[in-house]
């Protein structure tokens, strides 16, 4: 405590930087976001409830939740595989591939959207083969899942990678010397360590998938009740100048995102606290 109050006096600029930070944060983030509550508050409760529980809105919520959930689940398994391969094995082109994993973060979503659509449409490189098997991907919910898998791909890889890198090999050696098979070691020794990272990666990919717009609208087909995701429904309401409807739908959606954000933060605080305790720092 002594050290802290001393520091505050020694370094200059706390007032101005803190003031600017709070001002900028308020102007760009807090005040604009508060309009969602303000606008929704102008609706009566029955109006709000009517919009939020209308068949079209519920279908959009359900579709967004379902597709984001499936895509995040796929990413957990595939992300674990990619992270494992990148950390544990050596093979040619590994650095290049490691760098490429971040592509979905760097590529504008609209570009991903048109590229995936052209691939999975019935005349596309992949869509043609899939259609021969009697499956249709573009303009169906499966297409939305494909786009969300692309968007969420880096999250699990990047959350699992550092944990796997820091993993103490001695623990694996101990398990092996006690007679565990490789599979047993993986399931009983390595997996429990990776679980929090996998969970965080899942939550990040899921949250991102819920809100995703650019990459989805091209491949989704956008049919009301069938392939209309929630962000698109909000967009349509805005284009019809139905601001009340748009904000009501957005408010429910935003609350869900913030709940996920809170969950991730709690998960992380607990994890970093545990890591500090393990190192005997706190």
């Amino acid at each position, binding site marked *: 405590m002594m050290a802290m109050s001393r*520091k*505050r006096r020694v*370094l*200059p*600029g706390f007032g*101005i*930087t*803190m003031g*600017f*930070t709070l001002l*900028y944060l308020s102007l*760009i*983030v807090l005040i*604009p976001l508060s*309009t*969602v509550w303000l606008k929704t508050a102008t609706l009566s409760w029955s109006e709000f409830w009517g919009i939020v529980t209308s068949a079209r809105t519920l279908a959009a919520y359900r579709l967004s939740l379902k597709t984001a959930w499936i895509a995040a689940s796929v990413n957990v398994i*595939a992300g674990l*595989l*990619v992270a*494992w*391969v990148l950390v*544990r*094995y050596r093979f040619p082109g590994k650095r290049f*591939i490691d760098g490429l*994993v*971040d*592509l979905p973060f*760097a*590529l*504008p*979503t*609209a570009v991903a959207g*048109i*590229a995936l659509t052209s*691939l999975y449409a019935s005349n596309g*490189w*992949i869509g043609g083969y899939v259609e021969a098997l009697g499956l249709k991907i573009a303009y169906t919910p499966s297409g939305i899942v494909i786009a969300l898998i692309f968007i969420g791909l880096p999250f699990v890889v990047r959350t699992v990678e550092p944990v796997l890198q820091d993993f103490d*090999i001695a623990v694996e*050696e101990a398990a*092996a*010397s006690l007679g565990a098979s*490789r599979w047993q*070691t993986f399931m009983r020794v390595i997996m429990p360590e990776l679980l929090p990272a996998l969970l*965080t990666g899942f939550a*990040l990919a899921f949250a991102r998938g819920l809100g995703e*717009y*650019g990459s989805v609208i*091209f491949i989704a087909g956008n049919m009301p009740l069938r392939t209309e995701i929630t*962000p*698109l429904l909000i*967009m349509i309401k*805005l284009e019809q100048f139905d*601001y009340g409807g748009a904000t009501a739908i*957005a408010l429910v959606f935003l609350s869900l*995102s913030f709940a*996920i*954000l809170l969950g*991730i*933060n709690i998960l*992380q605080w607990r994890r970093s606290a545990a890591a500090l305790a393990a190192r005997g720092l706190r």
Partner: protein
Amino acid sequence: MVSIAGKFTAGTTAEPTALTDSRVVRWGLIGLALVYLGVFLVIPLLAVFVKALEQGIAVYWSAIREPAALAAIQLTLLTAGIAVPLNVLFGLMASWAVAKFEFPGKHLLITLIDLPFSVSPVISGMIFVLLCGRQGVFGPWLTEHGIKIIFALPGIVLATIFVTFPLVARELIPLMQAQGTDEEEAALTLGANGWQTFWRVTLPSVKWGLLYGVILCNARAMGEFGAVSVVSGHIRGLTNTIPLHVEILYNEYQFTAAFAVASLLCLLALVTLIAKHAIERKMGQRAISSTRELTRRRVA
């Protein structure tokens, strides 16, 4: 893993079968991972360039040099040119306040800085329409004074700033926290003023992290679609950014032109990835793990 496996074999000379996966498993997993990444990352990327060049280089060039495309490129550069410096300024201010001082509510402040990441792009655009649109909170006042924000450049810039808001700050805060305050205190003791200390001591030691943040911020600013789509009004040649121009071309079935313009954004993404990789190497192993930590938290 590699070094430990090496030590192990050096000690025992036998292959440590209990710790190394068999060849079949190893190459099977590598193969699976490569197929997955190939299908989801490489093929879509290739597809953009193939489709863009399908009708030859001449068609490609004319799609990019068409006036509406050039106007979109100009608008995108201008938007990023305003949004990125503002977020850099904010990032430097916020990281100084958060990393160098102790105050109550620090966790809350960091969470609030991260907030825009968990807001859907469409909602990010919507809030500025609710604020400054004709029916918005400041709508009547703005109309009265003849200020146009929505469906004009200021709206696009505001939405872009919101979407890229945390990127620079999120990069700098952990870096500055890791540095502590000892060097700054030493500089001050030796007679430097606050500005000199920041300029000569703090900034040089975070410059790579700052550049990293700028690159990510710029990529996102130039590529943002959903938020900008809400506030732009899609006026061709006036309020269309590159991603919006791609959408319009695509919806008009001008596929080759759409992919040609999209290929510019692909190049931007590739340059971003290469620069990011180069900086990660420059910052060294320790910094990488801190940025990994960041990637983990960034989008939260």
